[in-house]
């Protein structure tokens, strides 16, 4: 079983720099795992297009358009939910200790309520004031809420998972002072490009 040793005698700047670089590499690799487990950006746009299509079809009042568009849009949404999300997870599944289960239980229904609320409120208001194509515009407003709030939710989950990963595996009571800032900066500050290290110079 592996070559476990006592920690190397420290106190030299070199060994501390190497240790910090190694910890930074660990965090960066884990951040990539977390990003890979998140819903891809195009997911929200396809979902939004399907929502707008439903609104436009309902505004058309054409039975043929309704009969084709609504089942097709629902199929697209179903495929996105059923196939795409497990598709993302098939490549890599985030460790249970990293998942933000509690926050997800609140945030995901919150997003659904937001999109439904915006859609219904906008559609009803526009219809009340006899604005042309109220459902297309109303559903469009809901879709806009989705493409704005969806990626924000994604980013929120990404930060939570990164925080959980740090707390679970990287948080050390002894780690204080400037190293903390060097190692644990805001993930939003960093490029997802692995080559573009923001922690220390040199390639991999």
């Amino acid at each position, binding site marked *: *079983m*592996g*070559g*476990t*040793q*006592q*920690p*190397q005698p*420290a*106190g*030299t*700047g070199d*060994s*501390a*720099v190497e*240790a*910090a*670089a*190694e*910890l930074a*590499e*660990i965090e960066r*690799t*884990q951040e*990539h*795992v*977390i990003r*890979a*487990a998140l819903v891809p950006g195009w997911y929200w746009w396809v979902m939004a297009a399907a929502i707008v299509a439903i609104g436009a079809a309902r505004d058309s009042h054409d039975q043929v358009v309704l009969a084709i568009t609504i089942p097709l849009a629902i199929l697209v949404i179903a495929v996105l939910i059923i196939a795409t999300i497990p598709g993302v997870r*098939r*490549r*890599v*599944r*985030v*460790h*249970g200790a*990293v998942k933000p289960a509690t926050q997800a239980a609140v945030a995901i229904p919150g997003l659904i309520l937001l999109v439904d609320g915006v859609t219904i409120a906008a559609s009803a208001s526009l219809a009340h004031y006899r604005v042309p194509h109220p459902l297309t515009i109303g559903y469009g407003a809901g879709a806009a809420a989705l493409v704005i709030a969806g990626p924000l939710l994604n980013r929120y989950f990404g930060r939570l998972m990164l925080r959980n*990963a740090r707390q679970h*595996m*990287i*948080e*050390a*009571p*002894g*780690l*204080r*002072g*400037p*190293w903390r800032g*060097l190692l644990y*900066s805001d993930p939003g*500050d960093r490029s997802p490009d*692995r080559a573009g290290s*923001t*922690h*220390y*110079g040199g390639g*991999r």
Partner: protein
Amino acid sequence: MSTAGFDELIHAPTRLEIVSLLAAAQWAEFKYIRDELGLSDSALSKQLSTLESAGYVEIRKSFVGKRPRTSASLSRAGRRAFEQHVAALQQIIARSQQDGDSRPVAEADSGIVGR
């Protein structure tokens, strides 16, 4: 946090990346690890075999239709070794700070460790 224990097996750069990746995951596909770390099939196979021999990694082979799919996960021993290794790294930094060694900070300012 686990007891500190510097692990030479995990310390090697490629294996460190593999173990770090697997530590954040329940499991990961072979292709995902390969692409994420920019390794060749043979290089990744070799490193995974080394880690598997040490009892740190478990390899799972399955079929999706007729296509084989290989995935890897960190074993309990591997996860413990990784946590101990991380704790050892943190100890090195903490000791450096306790010793009042300002050199890492100076190097950070000079660009060796920078943001």
